[in-house]
């Protein structure tokens, strides 16, 4: 079973790249705006508020107005920053997101690109964003930003390990690094049933990787004000913001692909199922954020190294033994 | 009771300490004392050893009547109140020994008294203004520090 790639559909690699970029950019923009709206609504309803109501039906257009505001704002470059790093950071944070999106198999019948080692590529690229965050923190030449950046790096390293280990358990079962094939093999039985521990670890690590509360210590507005993006304004800040929400999409898509059986599901078309699962996971992440207080930095690291990683390794070991026996 | 009498005995040992007779219930205090400024550290030590805290420290501008500032210390213990107000009369412009080594709270209280009324405390580790701006040359709670009439304030404020 092989899907059609964009290359097959358009018959021309350049056209395929162009089309994929357009689709992904368009999707990410709309998606980020919609998730922001969704987040605000979910948060509001959990807190017994109304959330945005003024612009458009149910305030649906609120995010668009907000984006307009961000774009319209003057871009202020503080005088004390390291210009190169400061300006490069928002791009560095946002760029990997674009690349990552094209790897996700969203539908049974076609994908953007079909790589045999897509999972490796995805995990490798997702680690790149931290370079952007670090250069933002360092380049800002601000103590709060620097602390945020340092926290971010150690957090990313700490949570990359359990993330990869839990993904590895799936790979072991599927004997496959191709995301499309991993999904294809889940027909009838989703991996979450076979790998519940890995799924939970993956979700927690993914929340931490995307710097979402309760793991949002690089930003930690009550301690570090805004952390690495304290000094940014206007659309530069907007890019960080978009990157965060786009990262959410990628993390949740990957979780859907690895554990929730991607496009599999009754009645509805596969692509719809895929997005239903992704947005359900995003809702869970929002639910986390609006329920929990923030974890302290040292506890965050020890939670990763002393709890998640050992469990992930044990889980991997059990998976290895069982899949050998079966 | 023995604790209180021990305290009384210790206080009696301080030469310059004068205790007022039976304070009025309205004063909110169980003991009113006046002490020479050289003995205030000794008084503080007595109270500290008896387990009292420095509840309040402030100064009064009595320059109009007696050309002196009064520094008022108020000691209290936890629980049923046994409040002792100790008064030190300082000739205007002179300093009082600091209690900052005995009581942590004295550090800020004395800074406040200095800031507000210009009373200086000898031996205070960091006697700088605490509430008003740095480098100000006034002590606002002194009686001769006037207030601008409301009208002038209004005009200045726009």
């Amino acid at each position, binding site marked *: 079973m092989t899907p059609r790639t964009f290359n097959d559909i358009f018959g021309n690699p350049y056209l395929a790249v162009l089309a994929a970029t357009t689709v992904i950019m368009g999707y990410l923009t709309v998606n980020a705006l919609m998730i922001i709206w969704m987040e605000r609504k979910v948060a509001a*309803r*959990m807190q*017994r508020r109304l959330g945005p109501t003024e612009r458009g039906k149910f305030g649906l257009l609120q995010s668009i107005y907000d984006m307009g505001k961000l774009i319209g704002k003057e871009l202020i470059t503080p005088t004390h920053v390291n210009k190169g790093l400061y300006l490069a950071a928002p791009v560095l944070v946002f760029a990997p997101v674009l690349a990552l999106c094209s790897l996700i198999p969203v539908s049974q019948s076609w994908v953007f690109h079909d790589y045999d080692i897509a999972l490796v590529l995805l995990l490798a690229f997702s680690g790149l964003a931290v370079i952007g965050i670090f250069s933002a923190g360092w380049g800002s030449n601000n103590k709060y930003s620097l602390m945020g950046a340092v926290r971010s790096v150690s957090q990313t390293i700490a949570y990359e390990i359990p993330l990869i280990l839990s993904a590895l358990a799936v790979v072991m079962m599927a004997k496959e690094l191709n995301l499309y094939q991993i999904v294809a093999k889940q027909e009838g039985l989703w991996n979450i049933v076979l790998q519940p521990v890995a799924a939970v670890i993956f979700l927690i690590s993914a929340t931490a990787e995307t710097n979402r509360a309760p793991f949002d210590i690089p930003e930690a507005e009550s301690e570090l004000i805004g952390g690495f993006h304290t000094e940014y304004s206007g659309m530069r800040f907007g890019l960080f913001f978009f990157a965060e929400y786009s990262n959410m999409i990628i993390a949740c898509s990957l979780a859907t692909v690895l554990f929730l059986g991607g496009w599999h599901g009754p009645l509805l078309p596969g692509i719809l199922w895929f997005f239903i699962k992704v947005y359900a996971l995003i809702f869970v992440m929002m*639910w986390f954020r609006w*329920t929990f207080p923030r974890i302290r930095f040292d506890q965050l690291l020890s939670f990763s190294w002393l709890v998640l990683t050992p469990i992930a390794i044990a889980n991997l070991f059990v998976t290895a033994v069982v899949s050998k026996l079966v | 009771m023995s604790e209180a009498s021990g305290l009384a005995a210790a206080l009696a040992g301080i030469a310059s300490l004068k205790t007022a007779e039976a304070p009025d219930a309205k004063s909110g205090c169980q003991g009113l004392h006046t002490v020479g400024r050289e003995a205030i550290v000794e008084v503080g030590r007595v109270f500290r050893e008896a387990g009292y805290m420095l509840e309040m420290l402030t100064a009064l501008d009595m320059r109009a009547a007696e050309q002196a500032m009064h520094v008022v210390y108020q000691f209290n213990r936890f629980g049923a109140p046994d409040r002792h107000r100790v008064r030190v009369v300082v000739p205007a412009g002179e300093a009082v020994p600091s209690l900052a080594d005995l009581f942590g709270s004295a550090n800020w209280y004395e800074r406040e008294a200095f800031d507000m009324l210009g009373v200086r405390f000898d031996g205070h580790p960091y006697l700088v203004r605490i509430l008003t701006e740095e480098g100000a040359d006034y002590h606002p709670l002194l009686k001769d520090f006037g207030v601008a009439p409301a009208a002038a304030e209004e005009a200045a404020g*726009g």
Partner: protein
Amino acid sequence: MGRIKEIAKGARSLIGSMGVTLKHLKDEPVTVEYPAERAPISPLQRNAIRLIEKEETPGSHNCIACLQCEKICPSNCISITGYRPEGLAMKRPETFDLNFALCSECGLCLDVCPTATLGYTKVYDKAGYTRADFFHDLLEEYRETEEQVVEHLREADRRKKAEREAKRKAEAEAKAKEAGDAQ
């Protein structure tokens, strides 16, 4: 083993917390959409003061320009000048200005008002660009009727005077009668 138990307990507590937020997700919001809808305000709510219409002086206030409120106000936000109309026992205010920008809504002026003519307005969300926007001329609404009221008060005064006179006369007569009876 203890560690696993601890982790399990922690996870349970987290799920419990999530249950609380989920429960509220379906609750009705408590928000009042302010400019569109307004929450009812307390009948005693303190706002800028106004002069209330009194029954002794129909169509107008009963301020006697005694300046009590001006004197008690801690923020000096009331300024009154009074005058004494022809043939009236009490003064009337000529100007009654409130500088609401200074007001701290302590309500002391209402306490001291001898004629209880001070009350609160119901406007709680007035905004302005300059300080002048918060100068309230409390006599504004009553200026037109002022003459009428002064006339009414004169009338009342005259009537009161007449009554008093009559009463005194009656009393004197009664006394005289009493004295006569006693004799």
